[in-house]
Each structure stands twice: as C-alpha cells, then as structure tokens.
C-alpha cells in the first residue's frame, strides 16, 4: 500500500506540467490529464488488492494502511504527513478516480473548441489531486489543506467561463458560503488538537474513546466539524451555493457538484463517526435534523426549478441530505453505499443533461421537450438515471435508498421515517417532471429541436458505462456478489467501522418505498404530460406555496439582507477604522515619521572626512569602556 501516495501525486504532477507546458503539448495536454487519472484508477485496484490481502477475515489492522513521512518536528510536537488506506477510503478512491476519468473523457467532446481547453484539464487535475489527498489524509491538517484545495479547485471550475458575470458571482458565492463551514471545520480541528495534542486521526479517536474529552467539549468540537460538512455538502442552511454552481461547465457539475466534492462532507462525517458516536447523542440528532431539513427543502424546490441542471442540483442536495440522515442514524455503511451508487447515477444525470445542453444550447425546460425522438440514447440513459434517483427497483438508487430508509426506521422515530417516505414520493415526482419536460411531449423550441442529435461517441461512451453501472451497482448489496468480487463477507461487511453490519432487505420498507416512488411517477405523468394543465392548475391553487418554492424559501433573500445590513455595516466600521487608524495613523504615520527622522538625520552626513573619523574614534572609545567595565 506504499504506492497509495501516487494516486493523488499523479494528477498533481499532471496539473503542474499542464500549467507550465500545456500550451506546447499536442491537444493542449488533455491526454496527459486523462492518462494521469487513468493510471490512478489502475493503481486503485492494486491498493484494493493489497488491502484485501492484509485483511484477516473481516478484520483489518489500520496500521497496515498507514504510510507517510515526518513533516515537522519541534520539541514534543511531531507532525506527520501521512496517508491512510482503509475500507472507507477505498470506496471514495474508487468513486473519485472512476468518475474523474469518465468526466475527463466526456469533456474532450464537451469542451472541444473552448479557448481555455488546456486550462480546463489542468484545473480538473488539480481538483482531483486535492480530492484524492482529502480521501487519503490520515491527519487533520493534511485533510484541512486538501479540503481547501478542493474548494479552490471548485472555485476555479465554477468560474471557468469567467466572461459571464453570473459565473463569477456563482464562483464567489460557492467559495464564500463553503468558507463559512470551513471556518467551523478549522475551529473543530483546533478544539480536538487542543486537548489531544495531536492531529493524527487514529490517535484522536483513541483519545476520545478513552474518555480524554469531556462530553460537552467533544460535542461542541464535532458540531464545529459538522459545520464544515454542512458547507461542503450543501446542507441546510448553507445549501444555497450548489444550485448557483451550475454556472460551471456541465462535466464539472457532474464531477464536483454531484459525485465527488459535495460528498466530501459526508465522507468527513463518516470518517469521524467514532467521534460522533463518542459525543453526546445530540450531535447525531443535529446531523439527522439538518439532513432531513435539507431533504425536504431541496425536494420541494426541485419541483419548481425550471433549469434542467438546477433540478439535478436540487436532487443532489436531496441525496446528500439522505446520506446525512443515514449518518445521523449511525450507519456509515448505508451512507457509503448511497454515496457509491449516487456517484454513478448522478454523474450520469449531469453528463446526459450536458449532452442535451450541448446539442440544443438551451437549459430551461420550457425551451426543451420532445427530445427523445432526436436523442434516443441520451434520453434512455437520462431516464435510467432519473429512475435510479427516484428509487425504482432494480436500479442502484433503490437498494441504497432502501438501506437508508431501513436504518432510519430502526433507529429514528416515525416522524423521520415518514418524512423520508414523503421525500421518496416527491423525488420521483420531480424526476418524472424533468424527464417529461425535456424528452417527451411536443418540442417548445423548434429550432433547437431541429439541430439536436445524440452526441459523438467520446461523450456517449461514458454515458453508457455509467448507465451500466447504475443498473448493476446496486447488486453489491447482496453478500454473494460481494464475496464473488473478493470481499470477505460481502461489501456490507467490508465497509464498516463499528462491528459487522450486513445489508438488510426488509420487505415492508421495500414495498412502501416502491409504492411511494411509483405514486410519484404516476403523479408526475398526471401533472406534466401533454400541456401540463394539471400542474398549472395546482400552481394556481397553491399559489403562496408555489411562490415560496420559487423564491427558494427566501433563503437567498435572507442572506442578501444579512449581507447588506449586517456584514456591510460592520464592514463599514472596520473599513473606517482601517482607513483612519491603521492606514493614516499607523502606516502613513510611521512612514512620515521615518521621512521626518531621515530629513533630520541627513545633516549628520557632512561629507567631511574628519567628522567621520571623529565618529569612528568615539565609537572605539565607547566600545573600549564597555569592554573594560564588563571585563569580557
């Protein structure tokens, strides 16, 4: 497993080379970025094989997965720069390397002809390197650095078309919003370090399990850490950046804002589950509550969004909320299973939406419609993704969602369970809506419809691969499949933190969720097929509710008000202080003092040699007196 460090190092090297020499490489070096990530993907299998070799039954000695170097050492304090491979990291490695590879291949078609084609691949390589480092980091400092690196990569890519004002605004919004959470993460890390004196994760876990932290202290620390996850994973109330982040190129949305970066928050909570488990139960309740709020808000907002990418963005927030609920129910395996399945069908949804946008240059659903006839392949794979998101058997989304429903039903009260069932219905409803509005019915924009056609093979191939995985990925829940793939005891037992925990398949949950989903599908067809007359009437009937959803629960307005009234006012005071006290008095004042003193001092420079000689002799005499007094 010593080669694990190569996995992030390769894309990082690709980034550096592309940045420096990308202009001179044939095809702007896209092959280099793809080659680097493909090699990382291959390396993943070697690392996985090593990991399976090192396992004894279903047990795995974590120390075997660690590698690294000593970075800083002063006094008693040592800082290691290390990587940790374990079951959790393996799942993320698989997802990140594979999705990045798919997205890069797809991008060679999607981004063709873009003036900053090379820079696009460089930025994605940077992002991939940071994300893989984040996954492998075995201490909090490295994790935090990678966390910020991921945020920076996301910023670059959201604002990739920075000629568009909305893109730069969205990039800033994403960066600043997630930064609010990042500050919480940093505070949490510092709190953990203050008591334990180390940044190493496993040492901190041991420290927490041996009761080194008081319960209140640990609860406070994990809530601060959770704030980081809230920002990155677009949970309520910091979810506002993700829909706007759709200003970036669509493959970027697929990679960063669906399959990888936004699940970093989920991964963080999963990674730190020992801390959450050791803290007061209120911490997990907060996680559940935030997750559930996010699920309900995003699902309802998805109902009225008119931009195809935004609908998928809301469905992403919805999924992330589900994962948080699973984590709040102490089930890492359910969350990771959903993460795994979600990455395939969400990337599929984004990339096929990208094909639609690429072909029609429209992304408002009101200008699409009837595209199934023109783009049958895209329509088919999009439908597969949408059905998976809706949770229709036997697609990946169904198994993963049922597992979450199951653990939530077991460990949470019936309110949570009920809301989750409701969200399944709404999810199916809005996924059906977007499929119908985009691909079925009559084309609303004839001209766009005329030119639309399925994309070139380099873009279609990743779609088909992802669609295949969307169909099949769910079967890993069966122990037999997992064992056949070489995972002792099945995948469910492979990805665990606290004791063996297999996947369940209770019939009541499955039947109930399938009924909800099918009801959602039927409802979707009822409301939006044809001229969508029932949907219009429903909108009229519930006009206030419709308006609230349209305005996104006024979240953006609240933030805008807060920024205008609170942040800018406070900023004004600080700016006045900075201008008058710091700048005019402190900086300019000291500079003026220096000028004044220099003006006075220059008269000492007479230019006459005897004066200088006298000064030298005086200095010698003074030094002699000093030495004679102290007797050196």
């Amino acid at each position: 497993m010593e080669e694990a460090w190569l996995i992030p190092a390769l894309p990082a090297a690709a980034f550096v080379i592309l940045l420096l020499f990308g202009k001179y490489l044939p095809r702007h070096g896209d092959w280099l970025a793809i080659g680097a990530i493909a090699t990382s993907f291959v390396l993943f299998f070697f690392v996985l094989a090593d990991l399976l070799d090192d396992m004894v039954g279903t047990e795995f000695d974590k120390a075997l997965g660690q590698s690294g170097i000593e970075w800083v050492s002063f006094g008693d304090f040592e800082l290691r720069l290390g990587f940790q491979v374990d079951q959790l990291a393996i799942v993320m490695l698989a997802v990140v390397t594979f999705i990045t590879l798919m997205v890069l291949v797809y991008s060679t078609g999607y981004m063709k002809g873009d003036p900053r084609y090379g820079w696009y691949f460089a930025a994605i390589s940077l992002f991939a390197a940071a994300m893989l480092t984040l996954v492998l980091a075995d201490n909090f400092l490295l994790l935090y650095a990678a966390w910020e690196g991921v945020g920076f990569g996301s910023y670059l890519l959201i604002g990739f078309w920075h000629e568009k004002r909305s893109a730069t605004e969205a990039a800033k919004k994403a960066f600043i919003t997630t930064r609010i959470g990042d500050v919480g993460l940093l505070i949490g890390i510092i709190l953990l370090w203050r008591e334990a004196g180390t940044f190493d994760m496993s040492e901190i876990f041991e420290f927490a399990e041996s009761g080194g932290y008081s319960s209140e202290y640990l609860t406070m620390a994990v809530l601060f850490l959770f704030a980081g996850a809230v920002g990155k994973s677009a949970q309520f109330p910091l979810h506002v950046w993700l829909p706007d982040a759709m200003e970036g190129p669509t493959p970027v949305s697929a990679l960063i804002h669906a399959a990888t970066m936004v699940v970093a928050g989920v991964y963080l909570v999963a990674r730190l589950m020992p801390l959450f488990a050791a803290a007061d139960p209120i911490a997990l309740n907060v996680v559940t509550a935030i997750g559930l709020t996010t699920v309900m808000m995003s699902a309802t907002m998805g109902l009225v969004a008119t931009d195809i990418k935004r609908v998928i963005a809301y469905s992403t927030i919805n999924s992330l909320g589900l994962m948080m609920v699973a984590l709040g129910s102490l089930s890492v395996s359910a969350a990771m299973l959903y993460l795994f399945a979600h990455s395939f069908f969400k990337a599929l949804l984004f990339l096929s939406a990208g094909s639609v946008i690429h072909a029609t240059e429209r992304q408002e659903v009101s200008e699409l419609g009837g595209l199934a006839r023109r783009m049958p392949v895209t329509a088919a794979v999009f439908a597969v993704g949408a059905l998976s998101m809706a949770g229709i058997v036997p697609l990946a989304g169904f198994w993963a969602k049922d597992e979450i429903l199951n653990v939530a039903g077991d460990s949470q009260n019936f309110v949570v369970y009920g809301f989750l069932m409701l969200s399944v219905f709404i999810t199916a409803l809005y996924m059906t809506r977007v499929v119908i509005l985009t691909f079925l019915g009559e084309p609303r924009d004839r001209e766009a419809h005329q030119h639309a056609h399925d994309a070139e093979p380099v873009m279609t191939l990743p779609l088909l691969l992802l669609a295949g995985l969307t169909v099949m990925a769910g079967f890993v829940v069966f122990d037999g499949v997992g064992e056949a793939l070489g995972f002792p005891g099945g995948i469910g037992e492979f990805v665990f933190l606290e004791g063996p925990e297999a996947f369940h398949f209770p019939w009541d949950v499955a039947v109930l969720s399938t009924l909800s989903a099918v009801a959602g599908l039927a409802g979707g067809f009822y409301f939006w097929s044809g001229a969508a007359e029932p949907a219009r009437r429903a909108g009229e009937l519930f006009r206030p509710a419709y308006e609230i959803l349209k305005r996104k629960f006024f979240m953006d307005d609240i933030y805008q008000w807060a920024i205008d009234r609170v942040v800018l006012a406070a900023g004004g005071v600080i700016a006045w202080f900075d201008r008058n006290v710091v700048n005019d008095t402190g900086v300019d004042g000291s500079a003026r003092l220096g000028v004044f003193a220099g003006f006075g001092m220059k008269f000492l420079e007479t230019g006459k040699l005897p004066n200088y000689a006298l000064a030298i002799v005086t200095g010698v005499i003074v030094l002699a007196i000093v030495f004679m007094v102290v007797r050196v």
Partner: protein
Amino acid sequence: MIPIENFLVLSGILFSIGIYGVLARRNAVLIIMSVELMLQAVSINFIAFAVYLHPEQFTGLIFAIFVITIAAAEVGLALGIILRIFRNKGTANVDEVDMLKW
C-alpha cells in the same frame, strides 16, 4: 630589565598622538603622517607582546614585518590619491572635499 608595561604605555601615547593628528589636521599629507605614527604604535605593541609573552611563537614579530610592508603599500596608494585629488580639486585639504553627502 624594563617591564612590558613601559612599552605598552609608550605605544599608547604614540597611538593617542596619532589619533589627535588624524582628527585635528586638515591637510591630507599630515593625516597620512599621523596614521603612520599609529601604525608604529601598533608595531611596538606587537613586538613587545612577541618577545615578552610568547617568544617561542614570535607571531608578533612576523606581524610587525607585514605591518611595515602593508604600510609602505598604503602610503604609496594614499599619496597617489592625494595627488589626484589635488589635481582635480586644487586642494589637499580633506574638509574641502565633501561632495559625498546629501
């Protein structure tokens, strides 16, 4: 015999007179002469230390030889510079050559 302090005091007197000359005189040639006096004082010190305290090493004697050598070179160069200044500025007084200032 003469104790070493006698020579040291003599060298101190000579050096102080040299200091006075360097500081008080304004003609460059006179300043050079005062510097020579200071060098003589240093030589006396070196030799006295060598023959009294460390006659087995006599590094001070060697140093005095080098002091005389370097002093000869220094006088040659300094007088060349004085000549040049005199030709350019029409004076050999150091307080009249004060271009290097604000």
